[in-house]
């Protein structure tokens, strides 16, 4: 089944490359996809969930972050001197499948001031959700807690569109915990 989705994607790319969905293109694309069948990953995206409205919100949220990210980099490039406080922080994310993890890693790299450097995943590549730690390079690191919360907010948006209910509850619990910690730091004035 999941291989079928991959095959559909391959045929779609093939037709887009040729620029038309003619019968000849569809047939030759399908033939090529069949030849490639054994090499396709069998497990595929470890998500069977898709919620259209949150997915739309995720797209909008991502485009806004993308625009802000580029304005931020542009500003950093043209201002004389340097205001960077770079650092690499470890971000334990809520368990989710490899496909969503890769999507989150890409989103982090494309959004403001953050870039995925490395990732540790517990367990095997069996399509199940495992605990994972993302190592993220942050350009303007003022509070590790705040930067971690920003990334978990992004994960929440992603899981709302594609994740299981359990993983959404997990990431929400992590965000609440972080908010409390940030609040208590601000409260004691340190």
């Amino acid at each position, binding site marked *: 089944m999941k291989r079928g989705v991959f095959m559909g994607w391959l045929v779609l790319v093939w037709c887009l*490359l040729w*620029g038309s969905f003619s019968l000849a293109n569809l047939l030759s694309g399908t033939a090529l996809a069949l030849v490639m069948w054994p090499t396709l990953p069998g497990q595929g995206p470890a998500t069977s969930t898709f919620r259209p409205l949150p997915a739309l919100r995720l797209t909008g949220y991502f485009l806004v972050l993308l625009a802000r*990210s580029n304005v931020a*980099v*542009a500003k950093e490039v043209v201002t004389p001197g340097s205001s960077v406080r770079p*650092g690499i922080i470890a971000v334990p994310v809520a368990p989710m499948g490899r496909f969503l993890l890769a999507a989150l890693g890409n989103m982090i*790299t*494309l959004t403001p001031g953050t870039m995925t450097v490395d990732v540790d995943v517990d367990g095997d590549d069996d399509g199940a959700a495992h605990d994972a730690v993302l190592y993220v*390079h942050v350009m303007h690191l003022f509070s590790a807690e705040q930067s971690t919360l920003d990334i978990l907010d992004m994960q929440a948006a992603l899981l709302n569109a594609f994740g299981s209910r359990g993983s959404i509850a997990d990431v929400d619990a992590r965000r609440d915990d972080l908010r409390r910690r940030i609040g208590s730091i601000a409260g004691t004035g340190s």
Partner: protein
Amino acid sequence: MSIIDVVSSAFLLIGAGFALLAGIGLQRFDDVFSRMHAATKAVTFGIGFVCIGAILQMDGGPDITKLVLVIVFQFATAPVAAHMVSRAVQRAGTEMADSTIVDELAQARRPAAEQAADPRPNQTR
């Protein structure tokens, strides 16, 4: 000059501007990691704008779908390339900029014995 021409030119110029900024950023930033920020985000954004500008100039035809694919694959692959480069750099032990505040990845990768002897310093604030 039609309104389409104006909009399309604006997109092309904005895209080229972002590519230029990325180049200047590569030159100006301090270490590989900071440079990758400029090299991935601004360039991806710039290519997106240039492709949209080019699409606006076309009257249909097969090339439009190709440009759409260029945008899709640029967004899918640029972060992966940045990830591979920065991971390779990190594993090779290249030094980070002096202004670096904390490196929890290096701390996590230290041998266990060393970590026990010197519990990880928390210097985030």
